[in-house]
């Protein structure tokens, strides 16, 4: 089985809000010099793929990213966890919130892969612009089935069974053809840590680079654009209770009683 995992190299979402600044254009964040990470749900997606490989070692895992050379760092992390192949669609700058164009690029890159993948895993949303658009649009472009909010996959005679969240519980589904799964977090898919020797070895593994221009996707006709970005202001009005736990608890219990009976 061939599994493709799409990973995005994003501004580290755990950075303190105070470090987040808006660039001069008024519609994108300042990115230079700030830490980056693999999108949190892309990490979950990668773990789901690695678990399939644990279960069936003949599974091939390809990690795919679109972005500048810097994004190789995300691919190297995945290679250190024993992903088999890494591919980067090279473009200078990602188009902010225009995830549909990114999906078109990723679809074109996936169509070039051999063998054609049986399963494509993406995050439910990127963790930066958080559009949640790439997965469904990728399914559309590849003619694949879509499975939303999956969190685990198990091999099943030739195919795969996906466990996913639905509004009122969980569902196990079997796609009847190649599928795109948007992956959400679950206690079972926290990304494993690499071994030191594998981190070192990952630096010698190749990364296939495809220039975006080769993929025939127009980059100057965005479907979605940010007009502006602003930072919401919050005023703090916290009343700190003082004293020993017993005193604080008594004062709080009294307030809670008042709030609940209002």
């Amino acid at each position, binding site marked *: 089985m061939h599994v493709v995992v799409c990973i995005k190299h994003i501004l580290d979402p755990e950075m303190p809000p105070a470090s987040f600044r808006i660039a001069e254009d008024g519609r994108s964040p300042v990115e230079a010099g700030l830490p980056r990470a693999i999108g949190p*749900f892309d990490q979950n997606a990668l773990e789901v793929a690695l678990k399939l490989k644990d279960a069936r070692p003949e599974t091939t895992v390809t990690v795919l990213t679109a972005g500048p050379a810097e994004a190789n760092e995300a691919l190297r992390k995945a290679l250190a966890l024993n992903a088999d192949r890494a591919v980067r669609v090279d473009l200078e700058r990602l188009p902010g919130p225009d995830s549909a164009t990114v999906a078109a690029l990723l679809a074109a890159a996936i169509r070039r892969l051999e063998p054609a993948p049986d399963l494509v895993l993406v995050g439910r949303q990127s963790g930066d612009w958080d559009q949640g658009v790439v997965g*469904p649009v990728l399914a559309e472009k590849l003619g694949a089935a879509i499975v939303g909010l999956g969190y685990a996959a198990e091999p099943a005679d030739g195919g795969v069974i996906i466990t996913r969240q639905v509004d009122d519980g969980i569902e196990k589904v079997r796609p*009847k053809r190649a599928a795109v799964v948007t992956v959400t977090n679950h206690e079972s898919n926290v990304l494993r840590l690499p071994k030191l020797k594998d981190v070192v070895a990952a630096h010698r593994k190749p990364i296939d680079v495809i220039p975006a221009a080769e993929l025939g996707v127009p980059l100057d006709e965005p479907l979605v654009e940010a007009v502006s970005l602003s930072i919401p202001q919050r005023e703090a009005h*916290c009343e700190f209770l003082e004293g020993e*736990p017993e005193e*604080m*608890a008594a004062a709080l219990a009294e307030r809670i009683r008042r709030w609940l009976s209002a």
Partner: protein
Amino acid sequence: MPDVYVLIFAPGGAAARAALEPLGAGRALAEGLGGKLAGVVVGAGAEEVAAEARRRADAVIHVTGDHLRAYEADAFTAAAEHALKGRDAAAVLTLADAVGREVAPRLAARLGGSPLTEVSGAQVEDGRPVFTRPVFGGKAVAKLVGRRAPVVVTVKAGAFEAPAESGAEAPLETIQAPAVEPAVEVLAREAAPAAGVPLDAAPVVVSGGRGVGGPEPFQKELKELAEALGGAVGASLAAVDAGWVPQSYQVGQTGTAVAPTVYIAVGISGASQHLAGISGAKHVVAINKDKDAPIFRVAEVGLVGEWKPIVDALIRAVKAGK
């Protein structure tokens, strides 16, 4: 005419509680654009839902067919496409729930339009629809536009109110959707275990984060406090990641959005993605040993210290006051 369409998915005849809310956003856009507001109800046996929509929109299209009894992504996407193809839509809105998230971006691709998601604001500026939504986990708010019509938009639950009934009944058009072979086979379905008060309806939510240090407090102190207050237990994503509680406990941007009278955050730092899920809470209390934790910026009452002695004392004080 630049009309606005609102998709209301009603598999098996029933729509989500918030499914009519996007009509509120749609009405504002239709007025700004000078077009009409139409509801598109997708689902077999959804006559009731169509009737609800007819009292709130200028026209209603009901797309039906035997294969639309249960939700299936390909069938519902094709049905929505069938209803909208060839109509002059400026915008197509639908609720951002599990169905809307799967269908809307694909529909945008099929109609040659622009996908936008999870919006909490919609207005017309310079003759075009402009949408607002939080990005970067709530650190910023973006104003976004679609360059190609129609914009196909998912609307966050709770962001808009369904319009009041107009007193009139809009015309109804009923059409049959083409049958579509399902792309996925559902093997099994398990309802979420209904343990106590559901999170999104609880009057009190006591949530634990990484700071509570392990799984036990969720079974013991936090549970006891929640029960004493008639509430439910929630958690941060970090607590879910650590395997301390199942994902169904998660509160936040990608978990459950809660709107209790009282929200008590125990050992939770207050990351913007967590806060995104508690904006509906009336009174927020934070218990944290770090007085600089961001949670104190949204809390009304703060208790700085080790969580355990405070929560133990609180359980006693609540029980004593009964």
